């Protein structure tokens, strides 16, 4: 269960102060699939970074599965983040120097998962994402769709409760985009909570609920029936 109360985020330079988030109240229940939409610069990614424990809000509360995290240090957030959140990015963010297998294995290494179990889980994730045959390839040797499937495999391999996706189809053609959305939908059906930032109404259609942001505020919410 994720809950934010009056979340604020200010970015300040010497000359200008920008309000990125301005009083966000938002609840996400376990097993929910939420899409966040809005124009560029409305604060979607900032919100996702805070929800993903990559950043702290300037003000407000954030309850992450029963823990108040809004004042945590980077080190504490990193501990909490590990294993409980999977990230999927628009630009895949795979490490070029690692193979597909090694990229997917990375979260388990940091969790100190024993080698046998690690192998089994990486292979399971790779099979699931239908990328097993490319396990020894490096990211540059893959198509965009394959790269994003690898990134999703990496996001799910530690079996996190929550997956955060930041425009996961933004760099893909429609066929590959469709495939990625189906995979996310399947993961959600199996119980994983998903919060996805998107510009695409089509992709948002996969979510149970769409939250619309404008100038750092929630303006409307649509629930799929």
């Amino acid at each position: 269960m994720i809950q934010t109360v009056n979340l604020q985020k200010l970015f300040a330079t010497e000359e200008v102060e920008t309000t990125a988030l301005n009083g966000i109240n938002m609840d996400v229940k376990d097993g929910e699939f939420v899409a966040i939409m809005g124009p560029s610069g409305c604060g979607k990614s900032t919100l996702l970074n805070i929800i993903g424990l990559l950043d702290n809000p300037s003000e407000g509360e954030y309850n992450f599965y029963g823990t108040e995290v809004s004042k945590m240090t980077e080190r504490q957030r990193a501990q909490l983040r590990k294993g409980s959140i999977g990230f999927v990015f628009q630009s895949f963010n795979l490490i070029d120097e690692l193979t597909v297998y090694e990229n997917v294995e990375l979260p388990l290494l940091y969790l100190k998962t024993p080698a046998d179990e690690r192998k089994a889980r990486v292979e399971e994730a790779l099979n699931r994402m239908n990328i097993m045959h490319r396990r020894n390839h490096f990211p540059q040797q893959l198509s965009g769709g394959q790269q994003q499937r690898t990134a999703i495999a990496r996001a799910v391999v530690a079996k996190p409760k929550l997956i955060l996706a930041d425009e996961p189809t933004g760099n893909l053609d429609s066929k590959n985009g469709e495939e990625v959305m189906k995979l996310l939908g399947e993961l959600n059906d199996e119980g994983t909570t998903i919060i996805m930032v998107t510009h695409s109404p089509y992709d948002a259609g996969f979510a149970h609920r769409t939250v619309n942001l404008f100038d750092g505020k929630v303006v409307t919410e649509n629930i799929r029936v």
Partner: protein
Amino acid sequence: MLTNTLKLAWRNLKAGGWYSALNVGGLAVVLAVSVLLLWWVKDELTFDRFHPAADRIYRVNSRHGTGADEQYWRTAPAPIGVAAASGRVPGVEKAIRTAGLYDFNTLRVGDQTYAERNEDLGYADENFLDVFGGFRVLYGSATQPFPTPNSVVLTEEIAQKYFGTANAIGKTVTVVDSNRVFTVGAVLANMPDNSSYRRKIIFPMSLRKRLFTGNGPWKRMDDDWGNFSFATYVKVAPGVDPARVGKTLDDIQRAARGQSEPGQLSNYRLQTLTTQHLYEPDGHDTGMQQVRMMGLIALLLLSIGCINYVNLTTARATRRAREVGVRKVVGAESGHLMRQLLVESLLTLLLSLTLAVGLIQLLIPYYRELTGKTLGFSILDPQVWLFLVGALLITLLLAGVYPALLIARFDPIRSLRGRGAAGAHAGLRRVLVVTQFALATALIFSTIVIGNQLAFLQKRDLGFNKEHIFTIQTNDKTESFRKVLANESSIRHVATAMVELTSGMGSTSDTEWDGKTPGRSFMMNQISVSHNFVTDMGMKLVAGRNFREGKADSLAFIINETAVRDMGITDPVGKRFKLHDWDGQIIGVVKDFVFQSAREKVTPTILFFRPEWNGTLYVRTTGQNTKQALAAAERLWKQKNPQYPFEYTFLDESYDRLYKAEQRTGQLFQFFAGVAILISCLGLFGLAAYTAEQRTKEIGVRKVLGASIPSIVGLLSKDFLTLVLVAIVIASPLAWWAMSKWLQEFAYKVTIEWWVFALAGALAVGIALLTVSFQSIKAALTDPVKSLRSE
């Protein structure tokens, strides 16, 4: 996890391409060179320490004269050694004397004759191994290396050369001059490189006693207080004050010689064995200065290498920002990343080390040539590895930890956008580049000054003409040989003198002239020459006349200008002058001529005319056909001295040897300056590439808006040039100060002129510009469409 870390480190290194190559290559060069340098420093600092209880062994130095006439010698007269060994000096456990051997140098074994270099032969007291216990005895007895008065001690090298085996005990060697036969009493292992005492053939001191023919009132060598030929060493009991020992020796001397001639008495000062290699008897730290200089250069080079590494790694860190971000997002903590980055540094360093070891192997022959050290450095030596690993760990600490800390702390969100710590650490990088270039500029500056000084020394007026002269050592018949040789067509003229000029003429204080302060101890060099020596050598008489052939001038003296000045006389020609027992007069004054290294001033010198004392022929060829002249000399030599091999030395080569230390310093500096510049340029090159990459978008925008290529090259180069200029401003006064100190050691020296600063600065700027412009031009030529798309 570790395999993963290692694997990734290796792939990152590979992916780094030329960044990695610059890093690994630069560090390898720096490691190799500084390890060799530090090895040299270690070698210099450990001189003579291999003797047991080396810290209790002292050499007895003697001090002569006072005030301006004060001199320190490394030697003492024979009776000092006798007194020290007699038990009359409290605290002295053992005392021994060693002396050079100039009586003969040609030995025969079977049918084979060997002309040895005089510096390889020597005399030593029979118990010399009691004090020099570090010399390993391979065969024979350490307590009795000379079982009989006709024994000789050889080193392994000579035993092998003469007899084809190290075990030469009982075999015989004949001295050609006297036909005296000596039996090998002991064979020593070759003396280590870091031994100050380095003789290869040692005769017992008793032989020298037998050959002694008397010196004035003194009839036995052990009573002769006038001959300071003996390097005397004492081993004292623990806790004994060396100054007290010296004082007791002073007292013994006074008791033996009486109070009558205060100016003739010397004072004895003990110098520890372990400092004699690097410190002069008067305490001057001539050798130590060079050791400090080389140690400093090694550290400078290591610093330049570390700076390079930090610069390149942190510059590249920004490229890796995204990777760091991703890792953090998937669960890496700072500790994980630190470990990963340190392992990468370690891998880079290990690669550099491997390369450095290879490089050292390649450099060893040059190292030996440059340092004059023949042994001592082997890659199999565990100490060498201690050095290498030590240098590696220091580099890792200095150069690996900072970038790792920096990168591990990247903010994950910024990193994911590919912006690690971009501008934040540019300040530090600037400081590092300035430091690096300041060091390089200082080395360029020093190289120029040293080069100038060397050129100055080589072009200096020696006061005579050293060209086309070779010298031959003879034992007798010198005068008749001189006459025969002079008739050869390829030979212009032949003069003779007591010794070869650069080998050091003897000095004496046994002189008298009208007006000399009573008791003044005034040291003069003395050399007997032939009547034609002054003219044939091209020396100039500034007053009076030359010697005339025949007996008439046997009490005539020619002195040099310095002698006139230091003696404090005017119109010297015709004045009474007494040398030893010869009461005569000064007949001429010769312009100062140089026979010492440039560090020393020309000293007062007296020329006297005793052709029968002369053992060195100075043969000046016509300069057209040296080969023919040498062949003629050899043919005539064989007729006169069939049992001696014909040996000769060119005088200009002997003079070059006087500057060997300076030449070596010059070459070393050129080399190190070269390495420092190369490494600094690698760093600058990497940094320029990084900057160009960082500013790709800016360059694209500027080009779209109409900027010309030169203006972009200028834009990119300007920042670096500013840094290099700052470096020059910092380096110039420091280098000037250091070089002024170095020049102080020379009696004759160049002044550091403004153009040296200008040249060093211009070179630094030029090199930096070349390095940076390559990257700048490359960036400026990039298609703006591509540059803009890259964002």
